[in-house]
């Protein structure tokens, strides 16, 4: 039994106030009545956000996150679809594991959970996982990534790029030359020198991206670059795109806002991989995102249990939770450029992933996957108030703009009045 909703006085992508009718899971034509009316005066409607880079930790680290808790965090962040990274335990390198994650996502029913398959068996970087089996499984995997690890072997990377062409797959590379980052703890530069922490040089990312765009060009395949973090990477991507290489790239909200200076506290809540970079990198990433050299914002939502963060910097796991703060951070960085935000956080990621029904223009007949944002609201981030099972947000105590008031997944609310429906 599906209800109908009339969203009154909403501004679609910052346009004039209008009414939006949702019926039978789709955006309906014209006005009319509905079972429920939502006063959306002052709210902005966006197509439901799509995250190409989420760690849901299930199976294996259910103490840090589950598909259900991660889905709830995603819905509260305005997302209607998330792509779950493969570095679970066991690794999502078989049809069995990806189907399990996919099924758990359906059961939670808060966002569409789309599993990403591992490129190599056990993320070990030695032999290809059964990519075709994952592609033809119920989960219908299209994106493959060893994220957390780089597919460092150039021959293996070439084969992966070629192989997935058979089912229109895409390789999402975690660009990190492992020999250049042995023991690395933070961005290599003035701050790492001062803090005595082993540096993660920008060139370790840039060298892999340069290699991979050339490989992708050579074999005529698509390449997606995860969490681009340096100004140099932006230059490599700009060059590759100008040459017509089929490469897309993402940036995380934290790399658009935070810098390596935060490591000075030695609080591992600021430890992340790739690491926070310098202010000039942040500037270059923002410009690249506006320009389109970087195609999308992806959260790299990486929940970690308390004991993996309340410890020495070097012993802490890298990563930050981000689903519930992504849109506010992007709003604070880009301002109320709704068209651009919809493109970078919803349409483009859906397009890259070949995901139908998401990232639409909210015209009549399209699936009602959308979110309502109050841009005038401000909130102080409270780690204890997060729906994620983990608390490792770098924004604790920070005031961010925008509040996600409601999210709809195929016409049914997952979030209403800023609270998860279930």
């Amino acid at each position, binding site marked *: 039994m599906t209800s109908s909703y009339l969203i009154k006085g909403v501004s679609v992508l910052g346009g004039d106030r209008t009414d939006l009718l949702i019926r039978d899971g789709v955006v309906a034509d014209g006005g009319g009545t509905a079972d429920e009316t939502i006063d959306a005066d002052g709210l902005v409607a966006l197509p439901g956000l799509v995250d190409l880079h989420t760690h849901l930790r299930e199976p294996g680290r259910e103490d840090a996150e589950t598909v259900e808790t991660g889905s709830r965090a995603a819905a509260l962040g305005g997302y209607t679809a998330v792509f779950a990274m493969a570095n679970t335990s066991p690794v999502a390198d078989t049809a069995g594991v990806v189907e399990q994650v996919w099924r758990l996502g359906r059961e939670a029913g808060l966002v569409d959970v789309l599993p990403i398959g591992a490129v190599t068996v056990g993320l070990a970087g030695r032999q290809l996982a059964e990519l075709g089996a994952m592609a033809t499984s119920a989960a219908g995997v299209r994106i493959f990534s060893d994220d957390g690890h780089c597919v460092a072997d150039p021959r293996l990377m070439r084969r992966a790029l070629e192989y997935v062409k058979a089912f229109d797959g895409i390789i999402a590379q975690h660009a990190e030359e492992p020999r250049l980052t042995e023991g690395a703890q933070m961005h290599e530069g003035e701050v790492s*020198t001062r803090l005595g922490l082993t540096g993660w040089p920008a060139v370790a990312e840039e060298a892999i991206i340069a290699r991979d765009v050339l490989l992708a060009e050579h074999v005529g395949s698509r390449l997606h670059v995860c969490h681009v973090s340096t100004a140099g990477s932006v230059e490599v991507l700009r060059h590759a795109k100008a040459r017509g290489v089929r490469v897309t790239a993402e940036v995380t909200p934290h790399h658009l806002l935070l810098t390596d200076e935060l490591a000075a506290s030695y609080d591992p809540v600021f430890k992340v991989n790739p690491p926070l970079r310098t202010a000039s990198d942040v500037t270059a990433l923002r410009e690249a995102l506006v320009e389109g050299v970087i195609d999308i914002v992806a959260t790299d939502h990486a929940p970690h249990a308390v004991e993996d963060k309340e410890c*020495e*910097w070097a012993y802490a796991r890298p990563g930050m939770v981000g689903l519930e703060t992504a849109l506010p951070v992007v709003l604070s960085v880009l301002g109320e450029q709704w068209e651009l935000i919809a493109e970078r956080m919803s349409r483009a990621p859906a397009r890259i992933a070949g995901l139908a029904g998401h990232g639409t223009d909210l015209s009549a007949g399209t699936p009602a996957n959308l979110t309502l944002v109050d841009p005038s609201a401000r909130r102080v981030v409270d780690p204890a108030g997060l729906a994620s099972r983990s608390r490792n947000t770098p924004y604790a105590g920070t005031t961010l703009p925008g509040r996600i008031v409601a999210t709809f997944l195929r016409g049914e609310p997952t979030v209403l009045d800023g609270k998860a429906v279930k």
Partner: protein
Amino acid sequence: MIKHLRSAADLDAGTATLILDTAAEMAALAGREVKKLPTLRGRTVVNLFYEDSTRTRISFEAAAKRLSADVINFSAKGSSVSKGESLKDTALTLQAMGADAVVIRHPASGAPHRLASWVDGSVVNAGDGTHEHPTQALLDAYTMRSRLGRIDGLNVAIVGDVLHSRVARSNVLLLTTLGAKVTLVGPPTLIPVDIAAALSPGTEPSRGGKPKENRTGVSYDLDSVLAGTDVVMMLRVQTERMQDSYFPSAREYSRRYGLDVPRMRKLPEHAIVMHPGPMNRGMEIAPEVADSSRSTIVEQVANGVSARMAVLYLLLGGKA
């Protein structure tokens, strides 16, 4: 007075000078028959050592005991630490035991900063990873002042594996705060990126745009800096660094960056030679140099106790 000594950057020139002056008084007391002072009676100092460093631990222990503090040695071996207890849980245990100060030696950079956020008492960094070793810098500065009468205006060369050296970082921060000029010397592979900018005192690194005081310099050529140097501090270089291609061989390192007799002769008449120990004789320092009258290596050990007494007194000798 400061609460913690986590980094030499915690010390401004006034505080650093006060510590050195206090160390001088402590050193004078060390010469008499009764060395014990009642000052820190009833206070508890915990030596929390996650790395073997008998020299440093004994130095801190002697300092605390001479001031009559109760000393608890908590070493990673044979304690719950080796059973995987987290630093935070250990901190809470020490807190419950009423530790007034925790002296921590730890292989992870920044561990003293973390510890300070979990305990009420003072935290003293006795060496953390490849970060800092501020009491070593204090005893080095004290040694320089005793030998040369001042620190302001001295030219100090720190030679060797600066990249992995906590002694180098703390010395650069402290000595430049006190007005010395420091030149870091070594093969480029062992000089960390942007070090001159990273360790300039009183300037905002990276951001802020203020011009930095240029009291820290870098050279790859030891021979060219010796003539204008008042103090040469040789750092320990581990031969294992060879395996990581920081330099081709011990022989080549020693030839280019070792302090031998001909190089020592290039130093001005008054110049002194320091080494934080333990030395690799024949690698970074020739035995004749280590045992020469210019060498302060033995004094440095004795001065360590006085400097650490001064730190403990100034951190714990007043109202908490």
